């Protein structure tokens, strides 16, 4: 069975929790004791209706305040696919949460309230989905029951949404689905109320969307995490480079280049535990032995020969500030890129993104949580990077605050 990870995005009252509840309920992924627990909690809070949001809001503070604190993960499956939902809450810290959830997703479900149509938030969510490299977007036009299941309302929203896409070239494919999460129309079951809609249900679309991760089709990129050296009699000379494929694939016998030493060798064997493999592909973990005794350690990158990126001590990136302490210019941070860690500092902020207009504006001012900026970063040592749009694993990094140890920002490497 295939795995699809997706993020759900919507404004505060678009019915996101209801939609997730509906998906889980209609795929029989909610259990009797969970349902009983939220029924009891709902009635304790004085509500007549069962509040499906309580399924995702698990923490005491969330239940007390009726808010969602950060990304929650939900799991369900159909005979066709297994799904992981990253449910990111839609209030102030949204940018940070959506970026976190989107970083491990393949697709985005963006909710639009049929009564309100495309709003500022819709643009923001779509932009962030594109920025994080989600090529597949499902636009769920919700609350169709409140607009008399009107085909015209649906088509107008579709037309309006197409205009946003002009600013997000990364998004390769969009599906539009008219739904009512509350009643279940076109979520899991096809709706009788909208005979004019010939397309698939939301779940049907999720089951069939193509998973296009550009990292899979790029040259081989293998991040070495750990060197396996058994040092016993049976495996006396064994040196296995344990790591994970960040891009492309490779097979036994392939010529490779090792960074940062820039030495060349060939793949002698590929293992996963005791199992001998002939090839390995993104995003699998493995252990690789090389033909030659070369310098490889944690943080080394093994790439297909002839594809090695240039080493660099300065990178341009889109940064999203994640810490409530903000991000400071000219102050050293740890830069974590794959398994490598160097030091780096923001040398210059080149622009600040206005998250409402999506225009690149004046870069001046403090860098606060949720800010998205373009920046040049100088590094204490060479890093070997790809563009984020080409390979997510080698095209992204985090900045770690050396005083608080917090993850202060995430960077997506650009030109």
């Amino acid at each position, binding site marked *: 069975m295939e795995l699809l990870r997706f993020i759900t995005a919507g404004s505060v009252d678009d019915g996101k929790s209801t939609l997730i509840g509906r998906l889980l309920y209609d795929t029989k992924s909610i259990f009797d004791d969970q349902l009983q627990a939220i029924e009891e909690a709902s009635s304790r809070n004085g509500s007549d209706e069962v509040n499906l949001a309580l399924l995702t809001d698990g923490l005491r503070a969330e239940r007390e305040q009726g808010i969602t604190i950060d990304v929650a993960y939900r799991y369900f499956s159909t005979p066709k696919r297994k799904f992981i939902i990253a449910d990111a809450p839609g209030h102030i810290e949204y940018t940070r949460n959506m970026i976190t959830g989107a970083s491990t997703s393949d697709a985005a479900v963006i909710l639009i309230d049929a009564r309100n149509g495309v709003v500022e938030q819709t643009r923001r969510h779509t932009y962030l989905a594109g920025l994080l490299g989600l090529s597949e977007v499902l636009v769920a036009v919700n609350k169709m029951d409140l607009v008399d299941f009107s085909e015209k309302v649906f088509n107008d929203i579709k037309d309006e949404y197409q205009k946003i896409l002009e600013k997000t070239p990364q998004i390769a494919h969009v599906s539009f689905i008219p739904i009512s999460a509350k009643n279940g129309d076109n979520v899991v079951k096809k709706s009788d109320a909208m005979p004019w809609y010939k397309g698939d249900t939301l779940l049907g679309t999720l089951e069939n969307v193509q998973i296009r991760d550009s990292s899979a089709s790029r040259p081989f990129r293998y991040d070495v995490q750990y060197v396996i050296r058994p040092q016993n009699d049976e495996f006396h000379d064994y040196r296995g480079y344990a790591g994970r494929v960040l891009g492309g694939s490779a097979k036994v016998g392939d010529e490779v280049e090792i960074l940062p030493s820039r030495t060349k060798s060939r793949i002698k064997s590929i293992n996963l535990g005791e199992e001998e493999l002939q090839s390995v592909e993104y995003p699998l973990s493995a252990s690789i032995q090389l033909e030659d005794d070369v310098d490889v350690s944690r943080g080394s990158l093994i790439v297909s020969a002839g594809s090695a990126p240039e080493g660099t001590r300065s990178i341009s990136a889109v940064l999203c500030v994640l810490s409530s302490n903000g991000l400071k210019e000219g102050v050293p941070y740890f830069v974590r890129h794959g398994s490598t860690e160097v030091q780096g500092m923001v040398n210059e902020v080149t622009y600040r993104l206005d998250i409402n207009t999506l225009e690149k504006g004046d870069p001046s001012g403090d860098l606060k949580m949720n800010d998205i900026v373009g920046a040049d970063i100088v590094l204490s040592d060479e890093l070997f990077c790809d563009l984020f749009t080409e390979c997510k694993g080698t095209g992204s990094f985090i900045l770690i605050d050396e005083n608080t140890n917090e*993850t202060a920002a995430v960077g997506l490497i650009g030109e």
Partner: protein
Amino acid sequence: MLTHLQELEAEAIYVIRELAAQFERPGLLFSGGKDSIVMANLARTAFYPQAIPFPFVHIDTGHNFPETIEFRDSLVKRLGVKLIVGSVQESIDTGRVREEKGIGASRNRLQTVTLIDTIRKNKFDALLGGGRRDEEKARAKERFFSLRNVFSEWDPKNQRPELFGLYNGHKDRGEHFRVFPLSNWTELDVWQYIKEKGIDVPSLYFSHEREVYERDGAVLAWSPVVQLAPGETVKKMRVRCRTVGDITCTGLTVSDASTLDDIIREVASTHVTERGGRADDRRSETAMEDRKKAGYF
């Protein structure tokens, strides 16, 4: 095309190797349950042919299913890893904790103190746990790398965002991490993986006849340490464990599932969550969150 199990396996192995690489004194919390058994197998796969480069840690309540301890000892021997046991009985004997008395008494809560003491004594800076986000609503909010302060407390409101599998293990002295490689696995994934890889699990998970009693709608294993309430009686039933924990609070499932295929069918069609029978979770709406904040697994 990769299967969901291949992707989950790759992710878990990646996380286990990050633990070994980023920390100086890691360990693996081994309960003897299916999740920790799968985790132990993944750790073996991650470092093969080298031995697993960290010890297993068992927090022993003293109220175990005997099958669990037998299984633990044979697995540890087969993998060639060191086993460190933190004993709740010892914590009671030395006066660190006071044992609960009466009906429904459990050593579950006391484990937290023993666990924290074991972490301090052995100077662990990171421990692998088999927790999964689908198990329980507070666990759904858990990170792969979860920071604990010097008091071992979890602060769910102040967690580090995790992006692109870049796990930030930086910490101050005295703090430690709990690391959860199975975060994205469901109960069904665990069983499918056990079947696919031919992993041994204790006989407790398969249908067997056992002396049990019923309390609050749950079927529990009877053992000499259990104090029955008036009206409760011990009877024999065909049951199996869905989770394995302290014998006094682990609910049993009435089941005839005697093979892995039976179990997979049963788990795929069940209407009750795995922890639905855990008396420790049923103490209050946020029982798990409260225990986790205090340093529980």
